[in-house]
């Protein structure tokens, strides 16, 4: 069993989200405990992390409007559904990648999986609503973002 408390992973994930959004989009992200989940139609995107002693996953949820405004800011075009899906996968990949770098000194090399990107409404039907465990909520330029980190011992 990993000695890494969930609070450490949650903190690393939050710092990584703030860093990635600031560097990629130039937007500020602030913790927003009063928000509970990202409302409206949108994306649920996850990537697995495998550290020396544990497996885990990072999940990010946000609205379609966040994706289109982010793409507009980056590329000058709000893009289509395929573009938003790709952006969603890349965003969670960068957050998990930043986490991996941040955790390397204590957790060893963390390997990332391939991002799994779903429509949130489909994911909720298949997986249920994301539980509050390991979840933090954020406000980014008026958009709600939900970030969740889970970990479990290797092989479980």
């Amino acid at each position, binding site marked *: 069993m990993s000695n890494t408390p969930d609070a450490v992973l949650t903190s690393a994930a939050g710092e990584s989200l703030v860093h990635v959004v600031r560097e990629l989009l130039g937007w500020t992200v602030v913790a927003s405990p009063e928000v509970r989940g990202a409302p409206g139609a949108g994306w649920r995107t996850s990537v697995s992390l495998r550290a020396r002693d544990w497996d885990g996953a990072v999940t990010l949820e946000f609205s379609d409007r966040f994706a289109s405004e982010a793409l507009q800011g980056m590329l000058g075009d709000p893009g289509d559904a395929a573009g938003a899906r790709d952006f969603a996968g890349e965003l969670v*990949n960068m957050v998990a990648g930043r986490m991996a770098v941040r955790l390397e000194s204590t957790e060893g090399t*963390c390997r990332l999986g391939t991002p799994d990107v779903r429509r949130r409404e489909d994911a909720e039907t298949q997986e249920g609503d994301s539980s509050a465990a390991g979840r933090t909520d954020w406000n980014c330029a008026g958009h709600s973002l939900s970030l969740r980190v889970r970990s479990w011992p290797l092989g479980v």
Partner: protein
Amino acid sequence: MMPKILSVDDSRTIRLLLVRLFRPFQCEVLEAENGEQGLAVVARERPDLILLDYNMPVMDGLTMLRQMRAEESLRRLPVILLTAEAGCENIAAIARLGVRDYVAKPFQDADLLAKVNRILPLVPRGNS
């Protein structure tokens, strides 16, 4: 002839960002979605520089690099790794394969341009 920069990345968002970044310069940006496609473009187009992602489906960046380095004519083709997983172990592994530099995603435009410019001097469009 304009220099060619090959972007090998499974993310279309990243490829579009790179196309946009290099648009003001006299160079052609080629695209590939994975290492397998990247090797095909390298064989066909002979780019002057490769911006290579690490973690990709079908064929990852490390495998593409190994295959390139196994071929004499491609051994010295400059590569900059562009990766979200810039951990020490990954960097050590790719350094052994002669990667010239690496940039962590999300990248700063000025940082990437400076690193590219050290390998492939970038000339603004409109300058002769």
